[in-house]
């Protein structure tokens, strides 16, 4: 049975029955898999599966689960999908699914998954499974190709390259007899691998070129061909050509199947001095090894780690090689049959041991840290080497440990950093180390944070140190938005460490968010009385004091920060333009209007909204708002005009509402003088007119053909002002104009329905 004919039929039927969404997904999922866009596959499959299950379409469920495994196993090399592959095999052999043409493919998914765990170790089983499956089907089955490919892969894993090639070619011949003359292009991987291993590089190259012209053209195959070309060309010594073909490592990051091929090409280029063997190459390979190891891949991880270690040694980084060796040892435990793994591990270990000893570390801690700092992080491998040596020499030094942990994190050695911190913490119960450890998980992993806090409380030698546990938990509670809990924990911190500054600042922040402004101000006053220099707490203090109307304190903190605010009472300075952003969640009732508005900054933490929102959006014009002084946007980039840069601040509170209503005015521009007069007249009624259009706004000439300069404006009217009064004023001021201005809504709400009707007619005449 033709699988794709069934899929197409099903798609059509689903569309007809109104399940267009599911039909779309069926259409797109295999395409996205073939183009290595696995994030999209992951986005679509759960929905498609849920739909297929709810419609009780087991064949479709099988199809979808198979394609998900294609993505996860065959492209992403995720051997942890083994359980799902086993589950699919079972599902594919139930009564309701056995007849589905995709059911045989479940065998391939499972066999490949084992192949990725340990290719050679499971080669016999994979061969048997493939033979068994091939005996049941003929070339008309779509899985004939895949299962043949699996068999060839198993043969190569046994080192039988020539045999694998002739087997594949025989299968291609069978497919040709069956009317598939182009089947050769369905086995690019099998043929290229065999050619490379057999040293038939020219054949490999010409085959890849033919595939380029006539083979599959999806992104996966295109990238695959570039990698293969790079490998072959590098081996042929055509290094420039090879480099031109080799994709950047991050281009293949989401397709771990390609890792080995990329590393193979890179190693061949390094061997011919065409590629730098440096720390950045090391970092790429480390990333590859880690990801594969995490995904339960055994054999390939082992071999990739070996390559990584060998290259590290070549560039004089035995400490990196040692880590690669450890990765090999871990990978060995995954293997079913170690075969030569132990020899490989022993060889790398011997090479590392034979390597000259690490440089003698600097004589003092200060010197080590200064050397590392002076490098500016340009060579993290060197830094790591220095810091490792320094740690051996100064095992109890916390600054060395913290520098080391930072460097390890840069090199993506996160587990190592954590372990080192934990070890050190267990021995020393150092407060800074505990905080650093907790920071790895703050707001992300409550369990881990709690573990650190518990450990610290148990290990700490005195109350002040034990309070660090509460400090950690308080920060975590703050990050999770539990401000009451945060404040309660900080009370304990402050009881044990009455002079703590940061705890007070955080306490004040939590209090402010809980609405306890006087409490917050009191704490901030305490901070200010203890710390002579101005700091972030002064900004916090100005915000809270502003909200409380305590302008003396605002001025005091401003002075501490180095600027003087003249006078007394409310602050109203001309501090330029900014934007204020409302939080859609905090300002739940504000939803529906623009989230960011233009405002005139009137002081350190206050601004008056000057943007009149177009009706029907909520009008904030004239509102006096308080904001947090840490801007939301980045400072102007180098080369950007700093004068034109506008800061965006997060809204905190509306101190006073403007209380206006807004209406649109639209029509033919009456001339600057008239507009000015209108503006003045309106301002006498306390209204604000804002012209939103510019010189290039044209409207249709309602009388003759052609265009006239237009004007579009918004007028904000104080709520206490009668609308009729404003309407009459507009009418008076514009009565002599040759072309009308219109204010339909205002006229209507002012109760002048005749005028409103006239404005409506004008709108049509002038195309407003």
């Amino acid at each position: 049975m033709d699988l794709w004919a069934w899929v197409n039929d099903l798609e059509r039927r689903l569309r007809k029955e109104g399940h267009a969404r599911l039909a779309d997904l069926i259409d797109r999922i295999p395409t996205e898999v073939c183009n290595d866009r696995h994030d999209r596959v992951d986005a679509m499959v759960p929905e498609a599966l849920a739909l297929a299950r709810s419609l009780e379409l087991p064949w479709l469920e099988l199809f979808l689960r198979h394609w998900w495994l294609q993505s996860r196993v065959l492209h992403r090399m995720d051997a942890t999908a083994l359980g799902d592959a086993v589950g699919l095999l079972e599902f594919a052999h139930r009564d309701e699914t056995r007849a589905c043409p995709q059911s045989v493919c479940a065998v391939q998914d499972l066999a490949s998954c084992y192949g990725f765990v340990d290719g050679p170790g499971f080669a016999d089983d994979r061969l048997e499974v493939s033979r068994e499956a091939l005996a049941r089907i003929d070339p008309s089955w779509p899985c004939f190709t895949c299962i043949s490919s699996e068999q060839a892969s198993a043969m190569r894993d046994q080192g039988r390259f020539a045999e694998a090639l002739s087997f594949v070619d025989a299968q291609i011949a069978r497919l040709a007899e069956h009317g598939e003359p182009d089947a050769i292009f369905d086995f690019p991987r099998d043929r290229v691998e065999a050619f490379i291993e057999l040293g038939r590089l020219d054949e490999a190259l010409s085959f890849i070129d033919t595939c380029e012209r006539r083979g599959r053209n999806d992104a996966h195959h295109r990238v695959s061909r570039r990698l293969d070309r790079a490998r072959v060309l590098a081996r042929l010594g055509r290094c420039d050509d090879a480099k031109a073909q080799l994709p950047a490592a991050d281009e293949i990051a989401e397709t771990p199947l390609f890792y080995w091929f990329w590393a193979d090409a890179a190693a061949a280029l390094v061997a011919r001095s065409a590629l730098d063997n440096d720390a950045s190459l090391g970092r790429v390979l480390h990333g590859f090894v880690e990801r594969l190891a995490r995904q339960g891949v055994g054999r390939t991880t082992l071999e990739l780690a070996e390559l990584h270690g060998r290259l590290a040694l070549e560039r004089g980084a035995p400490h990196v090689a040692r880590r690669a060796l450890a990765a090999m040892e871990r990978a060995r435990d995954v293997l079913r049959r170690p075969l030569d793994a132990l020899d490989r591990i022993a060889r790398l270990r011997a090479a590392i041991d034979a390597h000259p000893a690490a440089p003698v570390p600097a004589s003092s801690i200060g010197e080590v840290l200064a050397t590392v700092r002076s490098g500016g992080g340009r060579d993290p491998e060197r830094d790591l080497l220095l810091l490792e040596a320094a740690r051996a020499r100064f095992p109890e030094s916390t600054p060395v440990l913290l520098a080391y942990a930072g460097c390890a994190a840069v090199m993506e050695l996160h587990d190592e950093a954590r372990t080192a911190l934990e070890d050190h913490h267990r021995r020393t119960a150092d407060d800074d180390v505990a905080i650093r450890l907790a920071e790895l998980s703050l707001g992300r992993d409550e369990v881990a944070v709690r573990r650190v806090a518990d450990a610290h409380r148990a290990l700490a030698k005195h109350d002040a140190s034990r309070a660090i546990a509460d400090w950690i938990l308080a920060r975590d509670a703050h990050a999770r938005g539990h401000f009451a809990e945060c404040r309660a924990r900080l009370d304990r911190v402050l009881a044990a460490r009455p002079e703590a500054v940061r705890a007070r600042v955080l306490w004040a922040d939590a209090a402010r968010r809980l609405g306890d402004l006087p409490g917050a101000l009191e704490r901030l006053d305490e901070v200010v009385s203890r710390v002579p220099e101005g700091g972030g707490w002064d900004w916090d203090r100005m915000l809270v004091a502003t909200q409380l109307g305590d302008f003396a304190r605002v001025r005091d903190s401003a002075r501490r920060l180095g600027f003087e605010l003249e006078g007394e009472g409310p602050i109203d300075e001309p501090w330029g333009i900014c934007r204020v952003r409302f939080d859609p969640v905090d300002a739940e009732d504000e939803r529906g209007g623009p989230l960011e508005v233009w405002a005139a900054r009137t002081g350190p933490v206050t601004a008056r909204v000057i943007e009149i929102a177009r009706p029907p959006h909520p009008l904030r014009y004239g509102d006096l708002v308080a904001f947090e002084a840490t801007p939301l946007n980045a400072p102007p980039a180098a080369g950007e005009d700093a004068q034109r840069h506008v800061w965006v601040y997060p809204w905190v509170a509306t101190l006073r509402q403007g209380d206006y209503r807004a209406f649109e005015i639209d029509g033919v521009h009456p001339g600057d003088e008239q507009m000015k007069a209108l503006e003045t007249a309106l301002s006498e009624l306390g209204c604000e007119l804002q012209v939103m259009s510019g010189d290039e706004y044209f409207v249709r000439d309602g009388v003759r053909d052609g265009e006239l300069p237009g004007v579009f404006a918004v007028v904000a009217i104080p709520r206490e002002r009668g609308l009729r009064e404003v309407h009459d004023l507009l009418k008076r001021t514009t009565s002599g104009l040759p072309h009308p201005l219109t204010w339909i809504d205002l006229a209507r709400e002012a109760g002048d329905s005749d005028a409103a009707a006239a404005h409506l007619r004008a709108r049509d005449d002038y195309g407003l």
Partner: protein
Amino acid sequence: MAAPPASNEHAVSDPIEVRTTQVDLSGLMTVLGEHLYSTPTVAIRELVQNAHDSCVRRKMEAGEGFEAKIVVRADATARTLTVEDTGAGLTHDEIVQYLATVGAGYTRKLREQTGSDDLIGLFGLGFLSAFVIGERISVSTTSYQEPDRGWHYQSKTGERYTLEAAPPRAVGTVVELVLKEKFQRLADPEVLRGVLRRYCAILHVPVFAGDDETAVNAERPPWRDDADRNPLRARKIRLDFAARFERRFSPICTFDVPAPDHAADVRGLLWVQDGATFGTSDNRNLSVFVRGMLLDDDARELLPPWAGFAGGVIESDRLTPTASREDLQRDDQWAKAARALQEALIHGLDAVARREPEAWRRVLLRHNEALLGAALCDQRLFELLADDLTVPTSEGDLPVRAILRRSDRKVYVSLSTRGGFEEMLFRALKVPIAVGTRYAVLPFLERYADRRGAQVVQLGTHAGNQQVFREATVEPDERAFLERALSRPGQRLVTARFQPVELPLVLVPDREVELKKRLEGDEADKRIATAALGLARLYTKKVDDTVVADLYVNLDSPAIAALLSARGDDARSETGARLLRALVALMSGGGDGAPGVDLSETLAEYTAAVCALLDARR
């Protein structure tokens, strides 16, 4: 400027020549008519295009001193269609060499010589398309090179034609088709006007339908309007233009192509649709004009697949049509154009988010789901959208921040389609649970958690359960007591602390054990081939089947605390334990299917416990 080969070899000694086109056309006509072109209206486009190229040629070769213009007329009674232009016209030799030789258009030659992008034709097939819809074709022409001579060409099939001298006319060409009967509707002036509006909307040379005073392409496309108009006005012009092309929805907002500060060989306008259809999320549509002529009105593939809500019109002189000229070749230029459109969309969405809050709100409202997927495809989009989008949860659609605020910076996600213990837990937890089976939800949340510092807890997975039920240890004798009191054969007791405290126990079945049972049963041998089954059993062999379910006991629950405190009192503790065991069973779907649970036994225990309680009171 290169001139066409001017030969007078065929000087007009004979009043009428009868010649044969240099190719066997009988088969070609069928191919053209039935296969190459999807619709007969394409023939009209081809003829207008010839007229256009002729005007361009005259401008290139003879200068600007004439008014370029194309008039297309239809006469329903006579069943004729005429295309008249003020272009270069043709000499006798040019008719022989170019008009009547298949695949040898003059345009291609001229373009190759001059590198001009203004010419449209490429394949030299355009004129032949007239024979697809016409049963008799005549051409009257006077070349600018010989303004005092005229020529009249006539043919019925394209294979044989007559060519005779005629009185000179104004420089230019008029092609008249007597339509085949089955294409009669093309002679309807209204149909014709519609066709011209579609195909020629942005053509540079004015095209008139019949005696219309205004050209069908009088309105310039907004991107060719260089005047920097007022933004309000510019927005309106663009929306109006978009509305002409978007047939199903009105546009919410538009984006210019290329994005500001982006160089690209493609220009045009994209928009977001104000609406979505039920069921499908892909309503992309894109009209592509090449050298001013509509080539493909279904080039959706040029738009990124995540933009199911986008429509657009673009023009490019670098895209290459296929021979049918109804589709585009997927070459490097195509890929570049696709990239330019993607950039324009991303920049455009960003600009709308900043400058058109009301439009942005509508975009979010209409296309939240599609945008969840889009956010995964581009980091910039993710940053733009992460806090504005909502995800479906057990309590309706919520922004992720709102979920995090409710649940300790964690997002609980359920991937289960059926009930199960997860569902019960959701209700008990009283926090919103994200619906992971909806499009893009889980990967979106994972990315959000990764970038913004939060935690995704997948309910029903091993890792997720560890997060929900935080294991906690008790004294060994307490543990032994709890095991005796609460767990049943096959259940592993796990002491833990979890929310809500009102929930004393949760039973979580081990799905791997279920799989093991099915694969290791005899039935599997009958169904699954030996070697494959062997491989599968390698896996299930490692699954411990002595435990079919984990029973999580909540140490924070007052009920469990009470049970522990009643440890010395067998009668009291047994009554409590019975009630708790019954609670587990009943919550696990009434006992059926819950591992280690028997419904009738459960009910008997429950009854006994209630009786014991009431007896004790008495």
